[in-house]
């Protein structure tokens, strides 16, 4: 197709998408989520935050636009990549909330489309896309965090079935999920990555137990998932036995993207901006935050946010122009996590001794919310790839600095 005809056709499509969004997205779904409690995860335990949220989800689901580039049979709209990009751009531009938050559609789904058998695709994709099944991820183990390749959860194949024994830790939402995709060890090779296999496991299987872990913030979204002689059909294996690491790497790349590129649309506001909180809690003189040092710290956080947003725009502009995004994607995750930590810390400092409350009747709710958010934000620089690992990756893969040459005894 001539480039100008193709872009004309895309423009017409864009207009149609915009019109559909205007007609079908309820106004309440155009604001950022106020908290993660409003997210819709799908699956057996899910509930909608509001009737509008349900309406928005059902409309997007039926249009196939939750996964626009997936085949129609699998719950998608069967559209080409450029059209899917237009839809995503327009949804983002309009400020629409994501109707479904799902590890399935964003991470496992793309992997299934590329590596799954027809049976696997038929069984899992459509329920995932339609919000019927909620997935969680089983990678880390108590002894295998940043050093994931050293994982030990064992799976032994016999007569077409795997028997799985071991433990997974930090499985987000496992207590509310239906299925888990796991990395298990089926053998040993030269490198620790050899002998790792990718398995899909039904959490209702006998022998699976899930225990939420209480964090320092009082929340329990992460779990320990224990497998005690759990039987898993061989048909639930993605790819060849012992070749699961490559599949996991592909998934990890999607995970890092998910953390940063869409972070803005999922951003939960705590209501008041940092500056407003400062003025309210610390005071103001002539409309300015009363403490000049705190004022400067507020500006620094705001300017860093501006730079981060400008970088996201730059990445999106490159993608929209059909170019591969540059090396700037490599630092988005760690930078945003540190920025968020500085923000929650500052907000807490504005509260002074009113920011020390865990629970109780004496101080109003917004005060102890800020405290919990500060504590919870400590995980941001650890989960999804620690900052230290991110910096290693930037140094070696982006900057080309040499591998450490540790002395061998």
């Amino acid at each position: 197709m001539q480039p100008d005809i193709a872009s004309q056709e895309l423009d017409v499509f864009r207009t149609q998408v915009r019109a559909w969004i205007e007609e079908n997205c309820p106004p309440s779904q155009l604001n950022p989520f106020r908290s993660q409690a409003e997210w819709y995860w799908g699956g057996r335990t899910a509930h909608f935050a509001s009737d509008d949220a349900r309406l928005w989800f059902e409309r997007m689901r039926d249009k196939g636009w939750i996964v626009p580039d997936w085949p129609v049979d699998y719950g998608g709209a069967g559209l080409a990549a450029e059209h899917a990009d237009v839809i995503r751009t327009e949804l983002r531009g309009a400020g629409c909330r994501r109707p479904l938050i799902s590890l399935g559609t964003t991470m496992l789904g793309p992997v299934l489309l590329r590596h799954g058998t027809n049976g696997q695709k038929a069984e899992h994709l459509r329920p995932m896309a339609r919000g019927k099944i909620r997935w969680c991820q089983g990678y880390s183990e108590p002894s295998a965090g940043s050093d994931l390749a050293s994982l030990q959860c064992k799976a032994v194949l016999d007569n077409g079935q795997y028997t799985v024994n071991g433990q997974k830790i930090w499985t987000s939402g496992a207590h509310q999920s239906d299925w888990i995709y796991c990395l298990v060890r089926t053998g040993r090779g030269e490198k620790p990555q050899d002998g790792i296999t990718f398995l899909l496991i039904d959490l209702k299987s006998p022998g699976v137990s899930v225990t939420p872990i209480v964090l320092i913030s009082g929340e329990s979204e992460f779990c320990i998932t224990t497998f005690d002689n759990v039987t898993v059909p061989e048909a639930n294996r993605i790819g060849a036995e012992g070749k699961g690491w490559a599949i996991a790497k592909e998934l990890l790349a999607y995970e890092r993207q998910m953390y940063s590129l869409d972070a803005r649309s999922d951003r939960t506001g705590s209501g008041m901006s940092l500056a407003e909180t400062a003025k309210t809690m610390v005071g103001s003189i002539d409309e300015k935050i009363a403490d000049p040092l705190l004022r400067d710290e507020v500006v620094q956080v705001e300017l860093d946010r501006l730079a981060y947003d400008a970088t996201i725009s730059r990445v999106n502009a490159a993608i929209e122009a059909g170019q591969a995004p540059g090396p700037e994607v490599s630092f988005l995750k760690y930078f945003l996590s540190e920025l968020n930590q500085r923000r929650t810390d500052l907000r807490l400092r504005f509260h002074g001794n009113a920011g020390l409350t865990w629970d109780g009747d004496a101080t109003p709710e917004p005060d102890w919310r800020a405290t919990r958010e500060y504590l919870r934000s400590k995980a941001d620089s650890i989960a999804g790839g620690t900052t230290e690992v991110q910096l290693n990756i930037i140094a070696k893969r982006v900057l080309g600095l040499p591998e450490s040459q540790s002395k061998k005894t």
Partner: protein
Amino acid sequence: MVLSEAQNIVANQARRYADDQFSVDDLRRRRSDTLGRPMRETWKDLSKIGYTGATLAEEYGGSGLGFLELGCVLEAFGRRLATTPLIPTLAISGTLLSRGSPDARRKDILTAMATGEAIVAPAFEERTHFDPCYVETCASISRDGYRLNGRKRIVLDGDEADWIIVSALVEGELMLFVVSTNAPGVTCTHDILIDSRVASVFEFDDVILTTADFVASGRTAKSALDDALAIGAICVSAEMLGVAEAAFHMTTAHLKERIQFGVKIGSFQALQHRAARWFTEIELLRSVVYKSLAAIDAGTEDIDRLASACKARASDTVIRSGEEGIQLHGGIGMTDDHDIGFYLKRARVLQQWLGDATWHRQRYADLAGY
């Protein structure tokens, strides 16, 4: 924020030109009054390639390019520590004189700027810290026009300027004037700064100005000044981006070559993490600089706020780059022979000129209403 093909051509051409024409050795030579190349020659050369009128309208002989293009040129020049009048003359004075409906005198000056025949230095500052609102220089109204008295400092390229643009109070009201550096009563003394640039001090002793020298007054003057300084701040941020990049590349190359304890020092995790964070800062600056340059061209309303966001970050990043550059080079980074020290020196000057990071963060907060 993706460069068009045409913009990429401008950027590549600027890179080749800068690699060819400028080197750190120029700065070593410039330290002595007699050995450095006159700015007038540099300016004339730049006019041959169209840079001296890059952002001026075609009616003055300019190329009518945007600031995104000029920014690409400045970034390339920054990498080579090029010393040119581009920002003071073109970005600041050129913008200021082009505003509104320029009279015949201003048109002549702009045309001379585009042909590389006139250097026009902005002369607004009077204190050791950036404060364009602070003006003690004054002009009293006289029979033939005005009499100018006062003092301006840190006027870059002042020693070779044909004209300077001066801010003065006339009966308490802010006014802008074009002053010929040859005019009786104008004295110029100069310093060579640590980055080998020349900065001048101008003294005005009853300098006679006529209405032809008048540029703007009152609100018009204030807004023209604010705009020109905002554009100047964004342009110098583009230059600082180039300076930071070059210091970074020179340093990572060093990390990959230098061997100590039997290994390349770039394999040490502490240095790797430091380099990764430094890389992040530069890329974040790149995002804000390009956003700001594009905003000038788009005629964005609150360009002041963005300019301060940009200059504050650029000032911090360029200083960090100069300092990390020396530290990671070790002892050799402290020698005059090695080029890296000159990046710190240029960084020091640029982070200060037109307002340092603290000034711009405060200004950002003022404009943002907190």
